[in-house]
């Protein structure tokens, strides 16, 4: 049978035509689905990078309590480029209320301990819950410690001891990460944005073609044609899936363009968005489009009206977020069993691709076939659901 003469194709063509004429639908599915994700992503990363740079380059200001008790230290800090200031009367309060990132306290007995050759205690008032202050804290700690080490070395030398004796070992980490794998941490949410575009891309059409058709009371006349209910559903699901894929392709292209505006070289990372990579991701995601279309059509067929369907389907969009968020929050090592879980397997695979790693062909096959089977089962449920007499009630 010629597919392009089938009734399913007739339904498909009409749904696509009608949906393309609805500018609100096109806007919400394609613009919302494809554009917003990458834009939010790019803005987020740019902001992150900028802030990191700012923190690193900012003049280091160190408020100190009791400067006069350790003039050597203060002098040394100033020579390292830091600006030493008098701390306010209530340093704890100032840190807590975010006026200051930290305060260095030189206690009363500092000079006494120093002179006796005991470890002289210094105090850093910090708020560990403030992530934005961490860079400053690390820099100050580093400066103070290195000064301590210098003084220590000088004391040993003064007593004729080689300071190297106190450093029996030296640890050097050899970083084997690649520019791609370093970039992948930035791309942790990438699988979610791709899933999101597939779900959002077809959502409006799925609602309109099923719940909308019932609400407008055109379902009964439609089903009075010499066409099996399953052909009607197939046409609608195919149209939904096509919009999902269209939104996904647009999203991928947006990422490809968007990456160019990121200062990736400065960060020592590489985000590989070559056409071959994008085509691979698209192939991996194809069964997800079928799965999403089936799921959305099924849920919409159960809803009594447009608004009800809209509510349910908006929740549905968060399902693919689960594996992505899980992977972003608690990084996991990819394992074979994950390939048996639809949506999780795509997230894992896309994560691996973004790290520039290869995925075993067997893994890819399992993931693809299994997701396709689940999609087929769900679309069969949707077909069964359409054959209930209740589908024409309104």
């Amino acid at each position: 049978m010629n597919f392009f003469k089938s009734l399913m194709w007739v339904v498909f063509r009409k749904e696509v035509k009608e949906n393309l004429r609805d500018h609100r639908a096109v806007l919400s599915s394609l613009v919302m689905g494809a554009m917003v994700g990458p834009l939010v992503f790019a803005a987020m990363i740019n902001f992150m990078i900028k802030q990191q740079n700012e923190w690193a380059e900012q003049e280091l200001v160190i408020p100190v309590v009791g400067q006069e008790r350790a003039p050597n230290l203060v002098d040394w800090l100033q020579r390292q480029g830091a600006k030493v200031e008098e701390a306010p009367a209530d340093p704890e309060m100032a840190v807590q209320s975010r006026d200051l990132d930290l305060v260095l306290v030189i206690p009363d007995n500092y000079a006494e301990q120093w002179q006796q050759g005991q470890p002289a205690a210094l105090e850093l008032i910090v708020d560990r819950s403030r992530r934005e202050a961490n860079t400053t804290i690390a820099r100050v700690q580093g400066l103070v410690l290195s000064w301590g080490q210098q003084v220590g070395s000088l004391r040993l030398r003064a007593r004729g001891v080689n300071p190297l004796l106190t450093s029996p070992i030296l640890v050097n980490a050899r970083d084997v990460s690649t520019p791609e794998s370093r970039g992948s941490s930035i791309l942790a949410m990438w699988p979610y944005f791709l899933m999101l575009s597939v779900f959002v891309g077809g959502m409006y059409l799925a609602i309109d073609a099923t719940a909308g058709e019932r609400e407008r009371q055109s379902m009964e006349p439609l089903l009075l044609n010499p066409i099996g209910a399953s052909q009607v559903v197939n046409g609608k699901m195919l149209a939904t899936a096509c919009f999902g894929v269209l939104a996904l392709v647009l999203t991928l292209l947006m990422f490809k363009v968007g990456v160019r505006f990121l200062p990736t070289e400065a960060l020592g990372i590489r985000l590989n968005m070559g056409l071959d990579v994008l085509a691979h991701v698209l192939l991996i995601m194809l069964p997800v489009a079928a799965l999403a279309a089936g799921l959305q059509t099924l849920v919409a067929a159960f809803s009594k009206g447009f608004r009800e369907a809209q509510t349910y389907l908006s929740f549905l969009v968060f399902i693919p977020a689960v594996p992505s968020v899980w992977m972003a929050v608690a990084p996991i090592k990819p394992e074979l069993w994950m390939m048996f879980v639809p949506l999780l397997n795509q997230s894992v695979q896309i994560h691996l691709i973004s790290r520039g790693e290869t995925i075993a062909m067997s893994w890819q096959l399992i993931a693809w076939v299994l997701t396709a089977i689940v999609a087929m089962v769900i679309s069969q449920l949707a077909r069964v659901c359409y054959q209930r007499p209740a589908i024409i009630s309104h």
Partner: protein
Amino acid sequence: MIEVQQLYKRFGTVEAVKGVSFTARDGEVTGVLGPNGAGKTTSLRMITGLIKPDQGQVTVDGLDPVKQPIEVRRQLGVLPDARGLYRRLTARENLEYFGALQGLDAATIRRHADELIEQLGMETIAERHTEGFSNGQRVKVAIGRALIHHPQNVLLDEPTNGLDVMSIRALRRFIADLAAQGRAVILSTHVMQEVAALCQRIVIIGHGEVVADGSPDELIHMTQADSLEDAFVALAGGEGLAA
């Protein structure tokens, strides 16, 4: 020709239809009358195959809607109570969509659509999106798409509901023409003038049963009423038969 024999349908504890039988012959308009909730719509849905009868049989030109729903729907043109259109398609596109679903080729669809647009007086609205159509315009499109395949049998559920006088008159002529062309037309309605003007045969359904079946004159004669309306009230709602 549509033959309905001893149909029964129960929804939960409600017996919606209990033993309805009637025949709609070719070349005749058969009026199916009954108060709201009498079982009219359920009976008509069993003819189209959308609902399966618990008992009894329907044949449409000899075909059984339960066993051959697809074939039956090729012989049937139905204007159901639900007559929603596709708002973002033009009137012509609405017709063409149903023509394609009936499996007609593009040339036939175009020819039939042109004819129906002319017959139903839709020339000025044919190329407009149906969003914002008046009630009358919507009914015309809904009838047009139901008849795009030139069905031998036509089911019209309250076609003149909510129309103005001009549209009603035009529509009545159109319905009379359908029968004159040799089609079997079933007209479900509340409006007595319509029945008097159009129907050669009347079936009155009350409480899920056929309470009368005959020509308008026979019904008036049977009840010794002055008008068809009185006859209907006597038959469908009257104390003697409603119990």
